[in-house]
């Protein structure tokens, strides 16, 4: 056990940490923004609109993230037509491929989480909104979505953590994230134990930070559910 090699190479881990946080936060934000309209359409639109959304969700939930990433990174590059298209400058970059795959992947899961939450909106809330004369959009904005987000939060916090852990796969396509940093240190000094233990510590700290922040959000969002005087 020799942790001095970790101290000497700490800057590699810090770069890795930046890359991991960048990838995960952008992917989650993009995924969430896309997932909200998709989830609304999934619960309200007609079959023709629903079908492609269903197919999209089915594909991304039905295949491993690693396979999706290989498809995007190595698979797309196989076609000359694609390589000559305007999209290639983006897909040429490993970062973009990772962001693209991660965003769509988390979007598929988040769509399902929000759809489930919307579908379990109590009838009373909808009836009350209609009785108050709200338009569909206003009802969605003021009643259905805020109510659904509250129910979706516990499941979504899991999705955030899964995305963080899933992002370790980025190291397979040459991106130096936390795992990538660990692989470099491990192979350079033949000491996988120290290298990956350090990576594990990084992930744990991030995970606990996420859990803590979600906890704070829960306290804030579920205030109305607390017994009077308890907070």
């Amino acid at each position: 056990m020799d942790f001095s090699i970790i101290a000497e190479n700490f800057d590699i881990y810090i770069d890795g940490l930046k890359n991991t946080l960048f990838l995960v936060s952008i992917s989650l934000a993009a995924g969430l923004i896309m997932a909200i309209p998709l989830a609304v359409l999934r619960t309200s639109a007609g079959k023709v609109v629903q079908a492609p959304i269903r197919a999209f969700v089915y594909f991304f939930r039905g295949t491993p993230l690693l396979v999706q990433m290989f498809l995007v990174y190595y698979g797309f590059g196989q076609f000359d037509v694609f390589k000559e298209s305007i999209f290639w400058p983006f897909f040429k970059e490993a970062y973009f491929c990772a962001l693209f795959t991660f965003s769509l992947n988390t979007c598929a899961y988040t769509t399902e989480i929000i759809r489930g939450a919307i579908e379990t909106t109590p009838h009373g809330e909808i009836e009350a909104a209609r009785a108050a004369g709200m338009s569909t959009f206003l009802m969605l904005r003021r009643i259905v979505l805020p109510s659904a987000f509250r129910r979706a939060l516990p499941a979504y916090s899991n999705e955030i953590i899964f995305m963080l852990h899933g992002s370790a796969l980025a190291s397979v396509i040459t991106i130096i994230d936390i795992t990538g940093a660990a692989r470099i240190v491990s192979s350079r000094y033949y000491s996988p134990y120290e290298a990956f233990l350090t990576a594990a510590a990084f992930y744990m700290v991030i995970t606990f930070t996420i859990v803590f922040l979600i906890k704070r959000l829960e306290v804030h969002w579920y205030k109305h559910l607390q017994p009077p005087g308890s907070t």
Partner: protein
Amino acid sequence: MKKLLVLISLCMFFVAAGSAMAKDWKKVRIGVEGAYPPFSYVEPSGELAGFDIDIAKALGKAMGTEITLVAQDWDGIIPALLAKKYDAIIASMSITEERKKKVAFTNKYYNTPAKFVCKKGAIDSFSREAIKGKSVGVQRATIHDKYLTDNYGKDVKVKRYGTQDEAYLDIVAGRIDMLLADSIALSDGFLKKDEGKDYQFIGPDLSDPKWFGNGAGIAIRKEDKDLAALFNKAIDTIRADGTYKAIQDKYFDFNVYGD
């Protein structure tokens, strides 16, 4: 454990003492691998073939010795030598410090350099300046990774892959500009194939022993110093009389012996 070690070393002592008694090496059994093309492989007919095999036969001839080839899996190839299943290993075994603790080596019989590969015409002449800022693909945790990181880590973007094949895919996709790997692996695995037709070797042969070891040698038991001397003489003989070059040209279009 200690007793066992004492027992083993005692056995080895007696074995060593026994074999030290005059052996004329009229017959030499040689361990080969048979699963490392183009150096050593099995023909559809079941015959062993390859660079190592031809070298073994040529060395036998030069020594005036009858040789028998014994195919042995790689992971057991040194234990089987120590267990006297054969007397020498000719299996592209790199001469490394770890192995020297177990076996002795003859001089090298080939030493293939590492080389860079780039797209044809992408770089006029190789220099640190010319490759500055390029991305170079290597297989992770290889001697090539270490060499590149140690020597060019600040000048180029090092892209590390799990396998050599992934690096080939990415240079064809245009994500990386260059590759660094063993020249034979690059030549047989990439440049001679259809995907590699637009690419070429660039820059010098890289073979600094600090990173790349001392080439492949013939492994023998430590006590058989006389056999090592015979092999070394035979290597010199086939190098001198053109036999070596004839075998080399059969498999490769460049110098595999090194400098």
